């Protein structure tokens, strides 16, 4: 086989692989902009005939066709819960990650292992006792209750990533700053933090995506428009006997867009963070 045929074959295979990776998602997103009749047409209409925003108008309750699902409230809840829990998780993560990267102390390995293991607990398994305890404390169906859970869910991973980023910064820089007249805090804030900033940002986006996308816990700890998030809201479309496919597709688009944008922003850091965090241990 000549090199040229080989190259052509590998291009074709790559193309097919990329098609499989992208098509299912794109199809759903695209369907959000198509009228229901067209989505469900038999035989399938492959090339969209008509693009419309009707599905979005419908789920946001604008215009004539309205549906009884309060997407706007879910969207608001998702934004509040994901951003707040991310902000807290990042602060806690910087604090903890810095401790692991810069200090030697007793029980360091045990603590690290404990934090990581807490992350392995399956959401659904954790949801049972949290549900019971939160119910007693009156935290079921509150944004606060879910924020608290998401912070704890994100902290181990943010600590792991941020630890890795701080470790890349030579300890000597902070020492030099201290000799140059900085307090410990100034040395951190003026030297180490700016250098770890982009890494911390990507840890933050990772945390945001986790909170934004989480379902197992949210579906059991939320009840109403008080605290239901978009992923939980998505299941509202599945009624007993019918499913509003067009509405669901439109909502899928709303859930995916922030995630898409954020992930593309940090993809480089993300890979770097995961790789050296893991390889260098």
């Amino acid at each position, binding site marked *: 086989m000549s090199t040229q045929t080989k190259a052509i074959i*590998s291009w074709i295979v*790559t193309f097919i692989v*990329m098609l499989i*990776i*992208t098509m299912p*998602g794109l199809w759903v997103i695209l*369907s959000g902009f198509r009228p229901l009749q067209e*989505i469900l047409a038999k*035989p*399938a209409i492959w090339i969209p005939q008509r693009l419309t925003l009707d599905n979005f108008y419908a789920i946001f309750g604008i215009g004539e066709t309205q549906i009884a699902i309060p997407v706007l409230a879910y969207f608001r809840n998702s934004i509040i819960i994901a951003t707040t829990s991310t902000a807290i998780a990042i602060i*806690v993560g910087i*604090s*903890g990650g810095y*401790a*692991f990267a*810069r*200090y030697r102390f007793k029980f*360091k390995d045990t*603590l690290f292992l404990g*934090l990581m293991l*807490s992350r*392995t*607990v*399956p*959401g*659904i*398994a*954790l949801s*049972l*006792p*949290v*549900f*019971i*305890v939160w119910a007693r404390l009156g935290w079921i169906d509150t944004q606060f209750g879910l924020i*608290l859970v998401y*912070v*704890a*869910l994100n*902290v*181990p*991973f943010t*600590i792991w990533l941020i630890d890795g980023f701080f470790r890349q910064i030579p300890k000597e820089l902070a020492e030099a700053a201290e000799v140059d007249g900085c307090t410990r805090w100034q040395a951190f804030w003026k030297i180490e933090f700016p250098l770890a900033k982009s890494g911390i940002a990507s840890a933050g986006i990772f945390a945001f995506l986790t909170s934004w*996308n989480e*379902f197992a816990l949210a579906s*059991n700890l939320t009840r109403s428009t008080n605290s239901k998030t978009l*992923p939980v809201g*998505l299941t509202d479309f599945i009624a007993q006997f019918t499913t509003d*496919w067009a509405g669901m597709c439109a909502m*899928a688009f709303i*859930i*995916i867009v922030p*995630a*898409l944008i954020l*992930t593309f922003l940090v*993809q480089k850091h993300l*890979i770097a963070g995961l*790789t050296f965090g*893991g*390889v*260098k241990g």
Partner: protein
Amino acid sequence: MSVMTNIKRKLFSEQATPYVLLLPAVIMILIVVLFPLIFSLYTSFTGYKLTRPDTLFKLVGFRNYVRIFGDWDFWVAFFRTVGFLAVVINLEFLLGLGIALLINKITWGQRTMRTIMMFPMMFSPILVGFQFKFIFNDNVGILNNALQGLGITEAAIPWLVDGWLAMGAIAFAEIWMSTSIFAILLLAGLFAMPKDPLEAAQVDGCNAWQTFRHITLPFLMPFAYIAMTIRSLDVARAYDVVDTMTGGGPAGRTELLWTLIARTGYDSANMGMANAMAYVSIILSIAFTYYFFSKLVAARRYMGGAL
């Protein structure tokens, strides 16, 4: 005053600093994970039913555990879960490796490919579930639509209704969602790979397969184990996918441990029993993570100074 300054001094002394810095993280984990888990360990020894609050204090010893270990449905769900994970993680690794090698071969557009590969990673598992429920739907799904349109099959294939087909569809969704992480990390490994050992192997007379088998693959394994460790933290995401696609049905034929827990705990309100199962699932998750992490540590040691 002096007590306060004393406390202050202790708090800001060099030895105390790391503990103070870690305190918020530890408190969060205590409140949200450790304390509830201790509580759920307790409830797993009671006959607690959500509908009857007084049963929280009715200790039943090991009855829940005895019952689930004697329960055929539990064991079916348990082994289906283990088998499911074994199959999908291995397939994800193999597919990820294939994709990484493929992209590594391509001379331009590598970065674009890598970006495209991240696409499924952004999808919420619930969205993945929904998306494939839509695609595999026997009536309105695009897959059947396409198959029938092309004349490959006459009748609609009951993707999510037949037990085995539904399991396959779920596995497909799971693999679609998670292969990227393997591909991306293995590609990072291929990029990081030094050229010398490859050239040395060629000089030593290795053919392409031998070079791959003895040089490339051992170098990539730590990266594969990182992917597996990260992946094993999240295996329970499959709950979201299954819950949306089939809800564990038809007739429990796609029931995994996690959907069984949800059904027992929330739908049947049988919290004591569900917590006992939850403990089994926690141990399963820890076992998976521990297994891959120890492999990672061993692989790292084996690689010695090379990484």
